[in-house]
């Protein structure tokens, strides 16, 4: 009994988590239902009864194909355009899957960045240690999946430098991120090693304010906004597809330029 109880507990937790996710995201199951109920489209395609799950699966398969095509198109030598300081968008917009009243407060003094997976050195990093690494700065355009864009100024550790310091296996396929605001996402290794991919600690010359992801944000001018996680707590290197908060709901995983 003492052995069984915790096993049941784990299964129950996983089940509950899945159920809650489905409840939180009613739009996910509805998006095709809505689209297929359109009279015009049904007339054109000549079919009114389409298996919604198979349609959704087909669209997701094309999205996975698009991931491959984009990985193939990605030339790490191409740099995103940079801008002068007077072109910075002020105020830079806040954006998250929650409202501004739910921005997380992270205690910087006790903060440790966890590093796991295919790395040589798994020690957790204090902010001061990250500050001691070589720093870089960029003024680049943040492009949101919604279409809008804004120019901002970020400073921090080039992510390739950080990956070298932790002895990351750069032949691995994915870098995953877990965040203090329960956000999670993952990126491809070539983008992780891109010259403009920055483990950002600063925004506009000051430590990242909570609204922009204190204490750490991954800044990639080659990726859409939802691929740029804020409040990063843990980084892991893996060959197992980690998905992401929005990606699991249908946003394209590669999500970049």
């Amino acid at each position, binding site marked *: 009994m003492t052995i069984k109880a915790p096993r049941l507990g784990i299964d129950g937790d996983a089940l509950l988590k899945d159920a809650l996710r489905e409840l939180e995201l009613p*739009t996910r199951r509805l998006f095709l239902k*809505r689209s297929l109920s359109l009279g015009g489209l049904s007339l054109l395609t000549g079919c009114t009864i389409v298996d919604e799950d198979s349609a959704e699966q*087909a669209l997701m398969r094309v999205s996975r194909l698009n991931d491959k095509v984009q990985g193939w198109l990605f030339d790490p030598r*191409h740099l995103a355009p940079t801008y002068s300081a007077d072109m910075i968008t002020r105020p830079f917009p806040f954006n998250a899957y929650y409202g501004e009243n739910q921005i997380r407060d992270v205690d910087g003094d006790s903060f440790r960045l966890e590093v796991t997976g295919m790395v040589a050195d798994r020690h957790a990093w204090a902010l001061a240690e990250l500050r001691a690494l070589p720093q870089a700065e960029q003024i680049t355009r943040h492009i949101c*999946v919604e*279409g809008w864009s804004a120019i901002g100024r970020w400073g921090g550790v080039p992510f390739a430098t950080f990956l070298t310091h932790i002895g990351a296996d750069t032949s691995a396929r994915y870098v995953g991120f877990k965040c203090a605001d329960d956000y999670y996402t993952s990126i491809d290794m070539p983008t992780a090693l891109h010259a403009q991919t920055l483990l950002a600690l600063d925004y506009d010359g000051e430590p990242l304010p909570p609204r922009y992801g204190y204490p750490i944000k991954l800044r990639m001018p080659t990726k859409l906004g939802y691929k740029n996680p804020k409040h990063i707590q843990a980084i892991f290197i893996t060959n197992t597809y980690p998905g992401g908060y929005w990606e699991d709901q*249908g946003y394209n995983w590669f999500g970049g330029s």
Partner: protein
Amino acid sequence: MTEDATPIHPRWLRVTHWINALAVVLLVMSGWRIYNASPFFDFRIPREVTLGGWLGGALLWHFAAMWLLVVNGVVYLSCNVMSGRLWRKFLPLSPRAIVTDLLGALRGQLSHADARHYNAVQRAAYLFVMLDAVLLVVSGLVLWKSVQLPVLRELLGGYESARRVHFIAMAAMVAFAAVHLTMVALVPRTLVTMIRDA
């Protein structure tokens, strides 16, 4: 086989026409939903005519249908060029001829006796919509791959400018479709010739 025994539109043209029509409908309707996520003009597209339900769904449709448009477009243009049809049907074309035929059409004096022959307004309209489709693909590529395609991006004036170009090119495509469908309604026989060996 004599010229008259052959169908007015070759089979490849009819097939690519309808695949293109489907791709355009899917792309325009899902594109409207994507536009609604962050409109840059003072209006939104009514939800009822958009596709995808939410932004993520619309993006899935858009980035699937784009393959349909591009692959089908390449097949269409290749067949058109290789068969020589592009030059035979759409050229010569002069501004004077367009004006003459347009005035004739407005007076109801333009003949439709020979469906094999495109008048100057048709030639101009079909060539325009071909170029517009190319502009839609190019501006779409810039929005999708702005870092990887620096030359095209700068040609269109940067990312934000490319959004407007993409939208305006869409509006031109929709305007073409509106006129096109009106003309088909006025001369229903043209619909039949686009479907079967007529």
